[in-house]
């Protein structure tokens, strides 16, 4: 309220109409974001249940509302009205603060994401968008540790500490995966200076790639919509690795160890109930949306789609509104497509073990991302010294990266199995044999019985 009154005072002092328009833009953008985060969580929960039900040969929620569509609404209502339980021996202040610390950065991270050409809070102009996003997503860890520690529950504590280790480990390959794209932007920029602003990274994929041909239909489709220039095609391996790290960052399966139900009951969420639990839940699904949204901006051309740039470029109120609505539509479709993969992965894969999770991050993902940075730089160095144009470099880079992607997929499974098998089997067997030899009396008849059967 204070902030709003300050804005009003500021606006009344100056007679400039543009300030009122800026305030309006801010309010619209802010409200749409807040609404988007909160409703997106509710929609995703329902979508997840329905999609998983479809994959598992069942119907999912069906009784509440038509086709079970109101299930999430009913759940939210239930959570709001639930008694707020806090165990006596919990650390009160930390216990109460933890959900907020978890949820706030999730909502804050949306500040750097434009929804459409018009609907974007001023934060999207931030030149250090990616750094801001990474910083916000790493604050989550604090909330998780606070929850795990303050719950005064062993399962919570193990869950919280696992989560801390996991989120910090996977932050590194996540950032390194984005470095490849940042390098690309600095190569594409004529000044040689790239960008880490999310909005600018999007424009590298959309703006100026397609020169207006003056043919109305083609202009309408391809102005600002150039799928062949999306970074996804030039850095597919980084896209996949970013996505894997996103799964780990959001504690989604197969990296959902912090809340591994079969081992840790519910991890750091064990002692939470009611609205506090719902805030964690909201934060998790919000995180999922953010990871998907960032992937959309950096690898999939953001909100660009047929007609957006053309319609908003007409400088006409009505057509501009339509263009913005289209942009939001494209954005939401891309984000939810990525969220669908999250859900798909969840219903397919088992969970990794804690040490395998660390191994995967430190022994596989980080070397691969570092290797990719070197390869990208080397290719540019060679091609640039040969005097080739940018588009040829991009094609070569894309081909090399796709080859690396296939190699990665081929090798990673083998490596995971082989490293764990090599790491654990002999030592455990040796230890177990030694332990067994001390405790068990030798039974001469046991061996004889086994050979005598058949």
């Amino acid at each position, binding site marked *: 309220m204070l902030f709003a009154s300050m804005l009003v005072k500021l606006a009344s002092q100056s007679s400039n109409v543009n300030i009122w328009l800026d305030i309006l833009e801010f309010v619209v953008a802010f409200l749409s974001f807040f609404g988007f985060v909160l409703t997106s969580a509710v929609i995703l929960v329902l979508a997840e249940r329905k999609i*998983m039900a479809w*994959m*598992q*040969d*069942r119907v999912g929620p069906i009784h509440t509302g038509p086709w079970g569509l109101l299930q999430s609404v009913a759940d939210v209502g239930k959570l709001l009205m639930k008694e707020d339980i806090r165990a006596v021996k919990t650390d009160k202040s930390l216990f109460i603060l933890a959900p907020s610390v978890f949820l706030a950065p999730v909502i804050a991270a949306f500040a750097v994401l434009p929804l459409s050409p018009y609907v974007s809070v001023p934060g999207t102009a931030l030149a250090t968008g990616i750094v801001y996003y990474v910083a916000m997503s790493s604050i989550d860890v604090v909330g998780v540790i606070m929850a795990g520690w303050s719950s005064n529950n*062993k399962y919570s504590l*193990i869950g919280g500490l696992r989560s801390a280790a996991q989120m910090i480990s996977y932050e590194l390959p996540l950032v390194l995966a984005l470095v490849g794209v940042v390098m690309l932007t600095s190569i594409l920029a004529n000044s040689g200076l790239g960008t880490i602003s999310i909005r600018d990274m999007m424009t590298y994929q959309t703006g100026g790639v397609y020169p207006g041909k003056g043919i109305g239909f083609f202009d309408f489709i391809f102005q600002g919509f150039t799928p062949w220039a999306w970074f996804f095609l030039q850095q597919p391996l980084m896209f996949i690795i970013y996505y894997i790290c996103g799964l780990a960052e959001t504690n989604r*399966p*197969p990296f*959902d*160890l912090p809340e*591994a*139900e*079969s*081992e840790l*009951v519910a991890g750091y969420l064990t002692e939470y109930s009611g609205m506090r639990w719902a805030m964690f839940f909201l934060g998790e699904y919000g995180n999922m949306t953010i990871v998907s949204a960032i992937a959309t901006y950096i690898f999939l051309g953001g909100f660009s789609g047929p007609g957006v740039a053309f319609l908003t470029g007409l400088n006409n109120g009505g057509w501009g509104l339509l263009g913005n609505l289209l942009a939001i539509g494209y954005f939401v479709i891309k984000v939810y497509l990525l969220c669908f993969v999250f859900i798909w992965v*969840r*219903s*397919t*894969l*088992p*969970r*990794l*073990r*804690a*040490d*395998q999770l660390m191994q995967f991050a430190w022994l596989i993902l980080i070397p691969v991302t570092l290797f990719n940075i070197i390869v990208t730089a080397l290719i540019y160095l060679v091609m640039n010294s040969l005097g080739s144009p940018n588009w040829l470099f991009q094609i070569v880079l894309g081909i090399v990266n796709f080859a690396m992607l296939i190699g990665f997929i081929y090798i*990673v*499974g*083998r490596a*995971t*199995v082989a490293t*764990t*098998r090599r790491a*654990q*089997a002999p030592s*455990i*067997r040796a*230890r*177990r*044999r030694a*332990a*067994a030899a001390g405790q*068990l009396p030798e*039974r001469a008849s*046991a*061996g004889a*019985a*086994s050979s005598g*059967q*058949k």
Partner: protein
Amino acid sequence: MVTNQSINTNPPVTDDTSEGITSQEMLLNMGPQHPSTHGVLRLILTMEGETVTDCTPVIGYLHRGIEKILENRTVMGGIRYMDNADYLSPMLNETAYAGAVEQLMGIEAPRRAQYIRLLTNEMQRIASHLVAIGTYGLDLGAFTPVLWTFRDREGILSLFEALGGSRFNVNYMRVGGVLHDFPKGWLKECEVFLDQLEKNMVELDLLLTGNEIFDARTQGVGYIDQQQAIAYGLTGPMLRASGISWDLRVNRPYMAYREVPVNVQVRQEGDCFARYLVRMMEITESIRLCRVAIDKMPAGPIGTRTPIALRPPRGETYFAIESSKGELGIYFISDGSEYPWRAKIRGPSFVNLQILPEMLRGHKMGDVIAILGSTDIVLGEVDR
């Protein structure tokens, strides 16, 4: 039996590690209310960091005194209580009980009844293994297998419902035969189901067996060598996964298994993956056996006449069948009255559970559930 009082709740501070950091052992109480201890098993884990150094299973939370109830029920009336012992394979339990009484009385069920028993037993084995595999997937964090296997198990339960009138506690076996003959068209439905099941099993196999994460979680985990397996008295898939070919259907054939040869499924690895794979292969083998039983199903009576007040002769006997989890034996003592003087159940789950602390030692917290799941215990049979 471990009680709460006998467990030292203040573990000593362990030795200094090489870095000079003093750490304390943590006592973690897993269960009896825990999502994946397969019922109400309670594990008291002594942990150092995430590594399990010791484990004490505490059982008895599901004790219903089934053996005592059997002593207070007539022989025929007791069959129904056998359903509740290993509640995932009631048909097998009933067969064991009925078989023990038959052995004591010196009668044999007619051939048709024997084949019906074989068919229902193999279907029950499939159902039990389906639950084992599905919940094992759930233990490892894969959500889908459990729903697929329960869908398939649903078909078996529906077929049992048509047979005995009840889906779960079928109460179908009788001393000297079975309760009813098949309803009309039951065998045809059974064949249709088996065809569908075969297709579904291929799908399940594709989902789980080749999965790298699944491999990494199960291979080399929870290793039991041959000598240990025998020393601990393991039976069933637990034993066969350690490379020992021992199956009562082959080694001590009973009823129709004397005529129908069984291919024993053996794996050499001795780890969780081998146990999972043995169960998968046994499902395939059981499907084959079901088909054989349907093809060879003889005509004739489904039971011998036994007196209504069934009085087994004075004496004692031990009769064991190959249950889905191992050797399910009934030690039956009769004093010549209508009631058994003693009916001791040798539950394979109970025996197989003994090796758990031995397997867990030195593994990570995450492996506890993977190993426990692979033993496929049913607490109803452990506690009885």
